[in-house]
């Protein structure tokens, strides 16, 4: 790691002004759990890092508002894990945190960083996407709102411009919806997932009114599989329906092969885990 300049603005508005859209060696840093690894590996050699640690405390807070959660981008995953509001309004997030990386990472990694990094292996993006989260994004030119399902554009790629930062995430309350996230590892138990499947179901017993189904890790980006959602919507769950939903998801998702599994294997995993995730959600979403 070579020396670099470190800026520590105290306002988010100042932070976005310090970004330079034309210079890829200038980047923001939040928890640093991903960026530091890239720097240590020599993959990224910054000239200047903009630390977001000093910005206004409201961007590190969680507030229950308007039937949902407003989560500042600098909120740590640990704070998310321990928040009573999160547990009440979106218990799926609380459950997900138990198997998300490890306590050392959760203590410093942030919600904004986990999203902006665009790594398809992360656990938080599919969960927030299935819950229907929206992001507020700011730049020197003002702010805009982006639905998380429209946020990722490819492998480590997002819609963020080089002078934009995520300010906060808005997560609708889970309410009576049934939800589950299943992280599937093929190496050690604490490995990155080979597959992540998040489902949020508006249902009455086994009768599903509508469904949101998100696939991650096995794919180039966290992706809503709308064809699978369409299969489930308005139907009563049985083995045949779940098999159809799995087939639809496999048809729609764009898989990638890596050390965690081949594409044909990940397809089979998805078929199985769509089924298991829906069943787990209907059984109360207990992990």
């Amino acid at each position: 790691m070579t020396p670099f300049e470190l800026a520590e603005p105290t306002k988010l508005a100042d932070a976005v002004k310090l970004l330079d859209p034309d210079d890829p060696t200038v980047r923001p840093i939040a928890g640093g759990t991903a960026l530091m690894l890239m720097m240590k590996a020599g993959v990224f050699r910054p000239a200047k890092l903009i630390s977001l640690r000093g910005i206004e405390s409201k961007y590190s807070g969680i507030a229950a508002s308007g039937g949902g959660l407003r989560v500042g981008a600098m909120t740590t995953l640990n704070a998310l894990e321990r928040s009573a509001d999160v547990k009440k309004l979106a218990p799926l997030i609380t459950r997900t945190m138990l198997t998300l990386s490890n306590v050392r990472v959760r203590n410093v990694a942030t919600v904004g960083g986990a999203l902006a990094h665009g790594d398809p292996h992360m656990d938080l993006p599919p969960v927030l996407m299935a819950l229907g989260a929206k992001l507020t994004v700011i730049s020197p030119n003002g702010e805009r709102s982006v639905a998380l399902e429209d946020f990722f554009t490819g492998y480590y790629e997002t819609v963020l411009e080089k002078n934009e930062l995520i300010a906060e995430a808005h997560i609708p309350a889970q309410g009576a919806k049934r939800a589950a996230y299943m992280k599937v590892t093929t190496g050690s138990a604490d490995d990155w997932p080979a597959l992540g499947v998040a489902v949020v179901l508006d249902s009455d017993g086994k009768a599903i009114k509508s469904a949101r189904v998100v696939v991650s890790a096995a794919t180039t980006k966290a992706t809503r599989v709308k064809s699978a959602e369409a299969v489930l919507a308005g139907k009563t769950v049985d083995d045949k329906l779940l098999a159809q939903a799995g087939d639809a998801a496999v048809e729609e998702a764009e898989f990638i092969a890596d050390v965690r599994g081949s594409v044909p294997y990940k397809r089979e995993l998805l078929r199985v885990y769509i089924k298991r995730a829906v069943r787990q959600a209907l059984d109360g979403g207990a992990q």
Partner: protein
Amino acid sequence: MTMTHDAPKAGSQVGRSVPRLEGRDKVTGRAEYTHTMRLPGMLTCKLFRSTVAHGRIKSIDTSEAKKVPGVFAVVTIDDVMKVIPDPYYGPAFHDQPILAHEKVRFVGEPVAAVLAMDPHVAEEAAQLIVAEYEELPAVYDEVDALTTKTYVHDVLKPAGTFADLKHLKDARDTNTALDYRLRKGDVDKAFAQAAHVFEHEFKTQKVLHLPFEPHASIADYKDTGVTVYTASQGPSFVRTEIARLLGWPENKVRIKVPYLGSGYGAKLYIKLEALVVALSMIARRPVKLALTFEELFYQITKHPSTFRIKSGIDKDGKIIARKCEVFWNGGAYADIGPRVTQKSGLTASGPYEIDNVWIDSYALYTNVTPAGALRGFGVPQLVWAYESHSDMIARALKLDPVEFRRKNLLREGRPHATNTIIKDAAVEKVMDHVLDRMNWSKPFDKSTGVVKRGRGFGISIKAVITPTTSVAIVNVSGDGSVTLYCGTIDMGQGSDTAMAQMVGEVLNVPTETVRVVPRDTDVTPYDMGTLGSRSLFHMGHAVQRAAADARDKLKALAREVGEPEGSNIPVRDLFVKKYGMQAGNVIGTGIFKPDYIPPAPGTGLSENVTAFWMVSGAGAEVEVDTETGHVKITKLVNVVDVGKAINPRIVETQISGAALMQLGFTMFEKMHIDGGQVTNASLADYKIPGFHDVPTVMDNSHVDTNQANGPFGAKGVGEVATFCVSPAIANAIDDAVGVRLTELPLNPESVYRAIRAKAGKPLEDE
């Protein structure tokens, strides 16, 4: 909070679970490690490494690197050869250049070194070096390496240390760094007579040690002598090899080794030491090289292997012939591969009494990271094959896997394949203990749902690396306090504690009062190395003898000063009587080298091939998810024969540590290599077991035995529990779902593909 300690007691030191003597320093962060050590004026080295697997070096451009402010020097082999004209080193072959010389032979091979006070400066400069190569065809597979026309080395250069390598001197047009053979009886005739013949091939993958403290070495060279601080498992060998490279007597070379953040065989023989010595000679300042975790993937690994095993069985289920062909993928430099090939190869036929045995075991050069010893010295690769093979035969012949083994087991007093008579090897006792801990005779619910259950076991034997030498010194000071000087490296296995227990036992002092001197070749005497579970036996003998020598000298001193026989006078008073004040020393010395008969050329037979036998067994219960191939290990039983346990608690932790390490190698660890390039060379993509991977039930134990020729009836334990984990789990998977995996790791995709193939619906490749 108050803390209480039991007051240390004299008497009965051996057999007591003494807490580790160094444990408090380690957990409070006060223990010394090379990785965190600094010397005044020290330069840091960062390496520029090869990006091609096999090539001739056309040019190395260091000009941009040299321009980086703060760079002290950029060094290539040309600079090294000005101070060390013949820059090749290694324990079996002098085949590894200090930096790449004329050729590169694997991706990651060090090509140039940058020195700077600031490691970040050195790292930045190293990235500015440019090398051009004429790429050559490369060989990666161990079986291909035997027949290909692509040769990793133009000419072989045996070190001369080992008699059985001498015939390879100046050999050309070969990748074979050792061809060990064993011939007993007439296998062809026996196969012709056999009622059944089974032939299977097994493979193991490339994995690595990943010590928590990566390799680190510091050299401080002066014309009057050189001191090397190094994370090494074998300082005596490092000293010999550095002295040879410099053309110096050994007493000008001082090797100091603090505690090690584990080793597992990665830090044996010579690793970074020759390079840092050369760099310190050039820089005339202390130089440190400490690897990152990512660089470990280019230092040393376990041997991948291919094992073709063929057995002839008579109508009664007796194995009458066994033919073993083992190919060891040694990587670009031999390291200790030839020793693995021979010393493990000789037990390739397993813990069975077979009249006709034919073994060929080949150490092969390939264009990948070199391979060496890893917690088992090759034996886990062999047991993986022969204990899977045992179950496959039993299954095919519809024999009970226990009874099939029992019919063939090597028993006390019977000849091993080498002709060495089995002594103090509790093979059957260990197997029975595994079965007992598994409740094997009770009904077992295999389940009929999506998740199927199964169980399996394995049994194994290993010969200790023989012959090797250990020397120890016990010093009794004028106040009666006792200090032990021995070269065994405590790398986490608790050897300091065990050795101190033996001293305490002989001299009747509490273990906790015995000082064990940190390893320093100026101070601690010769030891062959901390490897292959040899130390407790070999160094234990030397320590026992040194302590007994000191005890005898104290008795003589008592007689000399007129004490009556049986006097109980405090030791301090003895010295006062002798010297008129608290003064003087009593020095006891001990040397141990076991008897040994080298394997006969051509047949590999020897009536005394090992100082002792190691025995272990393992049993596994698994749950296999038939929809995904995931295997959950619900119970893992590990049983070893350690003779008498010197420290039962440490024995238990060595068993569990070894078994869990092998569990990672069994279930998921794998270096993925594409065109010679390791594609997952980081801890983000190469995972080792964590707490959540520990089996639901871990049942670790040792059987009650006595190693008659061992110190206090004891023998080694460090690696023994690795041997049977892989076949026990594969056998359990077969029991659960009826599929047989013959290649490690047994990861979910492999299991799932096998299930699909068995169902006649194979999954497409990509």
